């Protein structure tokens, strides 16, 4: 398994891309992570992670979809490669497998 290389931030970005479906570009990802996880990442951070993940072959991107609000500049839209999809699912499976063995009594969730 190679999901030991995946950090929480990277995982969140994966999940955000999946949630955003065809409109996953850096700023949208930032908003999604802020809205769902209440985590404020700078665009620079997100951009760097996207770049790394693409280099590792987990993501693919193409340019597209400009708007006036962006000053007519195009977005870079990301989607997961098969490898990426495999990875994020593996991570989730592993998590669930581990959670299964945890008794709710041991958690003091408020």
């Amino acid at each position, binding site marked *: 398994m190679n999901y030991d290389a995946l950090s929480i931030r990277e995982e969140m970005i994966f999940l955000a891309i999946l949630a955003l479906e065809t409109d996953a570009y850096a*700023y949208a990802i930032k908003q999604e992570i802020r809205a769902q996880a209440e985590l404020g990442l700078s665009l*620079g951070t997100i951009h760097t992670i996207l*770049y790394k993940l693409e280099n590792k072959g987990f993501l693919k991107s193409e340019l597209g979809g400009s708007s006036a609000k*962006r*000053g007519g500049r195009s977005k870079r839209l990301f989607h997961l490669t098969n490898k990426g999809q495999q990875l994020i699912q593996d991570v989730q499976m592993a998590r669930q497998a581990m959670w299964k063995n945890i008794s709710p009594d041991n958690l003091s969730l408020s």
Partner: protein
Amino acid sequence: MKNSVTYQPPKWAIKFLTKLCDETWVDEILGDLEEQFHDNYRTHSRFWTIAIYYWEVIRFIRPHILKSHNKKTSYLMPFHHLKISYRHLNRNKVYGLINVIGLSVGIASVLLIAIYVQNELSFDSFYKDSERIHRIALHRIYPDRTRDFASSVITLAPTLKENYPEVEAITRLHRLFFANEVTVSIEDKEYVESRYRFADEDFFKVFSHQFLYGDAMTALDAPDKVVLTESTALKYFGQTDVLDKTISMSLDTSLFIISGVIKDIPINSHIHFDLLGSTESVSYLENAIRTNSWMNPWVYTYVKLHAGIDPDEFEAQFEQLVDTYGKADLSQRLGSDYTEAGHKFEYFLQPIEDIHLQSKVDIEVEPNSDIAYIYLLSVIAFIILIISSINYINLSVARSPVRAKEVGIRKVVGVHRADLMVQFLTESTFICFISSILAIGIVGAILPTFNLLLNTALSLSILLNPKVILSFLAFILGVGLLSGFYPAMIMASLQPARILKGAFMHNRKGHWLRNGLTTLQFVISMIMIAGAVIVQQQMTFFQQKNLGFDQENIIVIRQAGRLGNNFHTFRNEVEAMPDILGIGGANGLLGDFHGSGVFKTSNLEASDLRANVAIFDDYLFDVMQFNTLEGRVFNPDFSDSLSIIINEATVNSLGLEDPIGEKFSHA
């Protein structure tokens, strides 16, 4: 809702990023940033929107987005240097600590002195148009001597106001020269005030005090009006809205109406008062006005000139002023040939901003400081800085053998000498920066004690001024470079081949310089320590010098004269107390000035003597244990109403052979 289309992201930031960023990314990054900018503009203030934009741009400075030809190491080297500096500090904590503490104590001293000097230089500059306000002081020439007065005659202001168009506003201030303490009564409470001053109705036209209540233009336009400061009002009434309430004071039987309450006067002014009455309520001043007196310098005259008036040209006209307007009065008082006899009244201007540091005249409103102290302190600050730099230099050079391997390796892999210099300079600046932050903490911690000692109200808040922040950063850089330059040069010039062979030896050539620096450092330190010890001894001397009377276990009761006829009863009661050895009275505190007179004796060769006079009762000499050289002191068994007691200095200056029985008379 704000219109988001009219507002664009800062051009400078866009340009910066475009220049830095590889073309592959620049379009999408700027797009994302702009989208965020417009979103933020809807929910944030304009300031924050721009601030966030800049912050995001800064966060984008990462290796992978840089243009490929920019991916040279030089962009990233500073970070590397900082990291190495940090690691060295972290690894050699003792060495680092000594360096940082040494530098920070030095910087803290400099900072403290800088804050103090800044405060001294800022005196009276908070008044509106302070650069146009001058005091008119008097250079008085007598037939046999001269004297400079801060004060001037009461007729000067109205004369200038009427006859000189250069004057925008002019006012007179008076302080009670002799009866320094005034008792103020509010209903049944009494307060002894030493900062009761008087001014005419134009005072607030010259000095822009902020009125909490009342009208500046009419606040002093009647004899029975008085202006209070905020804290005085609070002290008397527990509130500041005290307009039209009345107070009475010991110099006058009438009631005074509070016509204004102003903000407390900042410490950095040469004029302070708690109460400001009208000069019209002081009878002898009124008298002087009525008789058009040009003789006695009883008031301070402050003039505000119109914008664009050259003070020197204005001052030049004063030469005829006294002759033109004061001749009649002065002829009457001094004789019509007073000019020929050698009397002269020369008025001159003193810019109020300079009074605190540069005025050297008598009868000041308050004691001043001296510009010499400012120069001296600045020099001391500079010397302290040099010492701490030398300290840093010696410590770094002493450690250069430890860094030799690092330098050797760097040189082997191709680092230039200049780059090595940059590395070590970065390191010294980094240490200097840490020290400065620590220094600010040190200053913050000792400032309250310092204020207590010097009776100042200094605060670190002057550091918040952008100009000050910039100069402080420049200062840090300067100290870093100054103290880092020599060690950097030494370390960068180490020879890699010899170092890697393990043949590193101390560089003999540099010995004289390092020894010289150490010697200099010790010499300066010793001089300063000696100076501190001398000051300390001087202070001890002040406190312990034998004043010729017993100072121990003496209690002074001020204002006891107000007991009036009850004084004798009071005396007897106190004397009967078992813990009291004796009780005596005088017309004032010993050492204070209670007036003077000119005396002559039968010795006709000695010139007349101006001597200070104090009045004691029959008991005080015994209570204070004065040493009697000849004769006897006042004693209840004798009637001494025509006796005087003189001191050794008076005997000497009058040249008296046998002072007992000598007759004194007023000259």
